[in-house]
């Protein structure tokens, strides 16, 4: 942590805080950069896996950005992508093993998805675009910020998909059972919400809302 001393900037100076906050909105990895879409579709049918996925990505991205930033001057440019991949893969395996040892139930639900973190292009994108050229502390903030930018979209999408698709939130039924057609009511879960295409449409709706609010994001053409 000697790096931030030479920088002579407080740990949470406005510049650093911006690293944390811009990925939540203006530079959101999913809605603006359109990265990491594949896993956003795969894990958002239910809220709990989406939440654990967000936490796991945050761990991998925070630590990974720190490792890459610390090594950045020693990494030969010709093999940098391989080095980044090795770091990501190692961290993902560690996360998977730790979950298996201490959060077995969640890890059973997530088994496939944890492995999918390796293929999450946001992580490699941040390594390549930020951590390779910045010091350790800002890289850490950038990693956490981007992971949350990814995570909150996941959680919002999962919330709507679980609510409309299964009538539950975090596994608890919120739609009164007397509403269902089976029990003589008028309501029926929308089975399409739990299929991946609806995740894409939900993400599309979020992008629409975001651009309606922040007109600078709209491309000119």
């Amino acid at each position, binding site marked *: 942590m000697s790096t931030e001393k030479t920088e002579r900037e407080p740990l949470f100076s406005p510049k650093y805080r911006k690293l944390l906050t811009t990925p939540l909105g203006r530079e959101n990895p999913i809605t603006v950069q359109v990265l990491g879409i594949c896993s956003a579709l795969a*894990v958002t*049918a*239910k809220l709990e*896996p989406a939440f654990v996925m967000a936490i796991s990505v945050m761990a991998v991205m925070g630590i990974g950005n720190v490792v890459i930033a610390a090594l950045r001057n*020693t*990494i*030969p*440019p*010709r*093999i940098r992508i*391989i*080095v980044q991949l*090795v770091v990501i893969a*190692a961290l993902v*395996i*560690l996360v998977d*093993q*730790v979950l*298996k*040892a*201490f959060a*077995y139930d969640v890890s*059973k*639900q997530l*088994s*496939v998805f944890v492995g999918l973190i390796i293929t999450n292009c946001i992580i490699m994108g941040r390594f390549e675009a930020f951590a390779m050229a910045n010091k350790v502390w800002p890289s850490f903030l950038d990693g956490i910020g981007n992971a949350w930018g990814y995570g909150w979209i996941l959680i919002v999408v999962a919330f709507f998909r679980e609510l409309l*698709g*299964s009538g539950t939130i975090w596994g608890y039924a919120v739609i009164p059972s007397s509403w269902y057609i089976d029990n003589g009511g008028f309501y029926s879960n929308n*089975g399409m919400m*739990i*299929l991946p295409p609806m995740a894409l449409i939900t993400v599309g709706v979020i992008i629409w809302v975001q651009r309606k609010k922040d007109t600078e994001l709209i491309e000119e053409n």
Partner: protein
Amino acid sequence: MFTNRYIFIYSSVMVIIVAAILSTAAMVLKPYQERNIAIAKIQGVLLAADIKANTENAETLFDQVILEELVIDQDGKVTGRFSKGQLTDGNDRAFDLNLKKELYNKRQENPYKVPLYMAETDSGKIFIIPLLGKGLWGPIYGNISLKADMSTIYGAEFGNDKETPGLGAEISDRGFALQFLGKTIFNEQGQFVSITVKKGGVGTMPADARIHGVDAISGGTITSDAVTKMLENCLENYVAYFKSQQ
């Protein structure tokens, strides 16, 4: 600015360090993971006996509830008995049998053995049978318990690793398992019919077959069919034993 020599050394050192970190982590965490797996297995067996156990009390509850563990061979003969913490017959403990290996032996038409747990509940003696099968994307598993008549289902529990969330993975839902209660695996003539997970619902089955069927998961037809296959493949191993006990 980086020579080839540097690149080779750099990548070798990196790979060795990463390998060391990962193998250390795997070794350190292995006891925890194996304990989790054993506890999950115990919890599954207990859940089929309608007992909810948490990670702390699972092992003690198992020792209290399970009267006897039997190992049964392909001809329905008992080749191992384990009760009250010790082997009383044979050399195998049912809990340590690897069901995956035994079912593989069965497929290869080699001799095989299957585990059976006997437990005492408020409504009499029950038989608990572990299940294992192939789902759409990966293994599906579970436990099913039969009442003393060796036909009526007392409890059931299912799990999966990789089925589609919201669709096939719903077999792990308690509501799906509860449908099995009171169904029978033998018909009135005493023939083994297993349980069918019926697409379109039990209502579409002939009236006299409804006692052998449960509703499939909408959107999870392949996983539902896999449950049917798993039930038949696992339950039929015990038919000879049950017949010999009647």
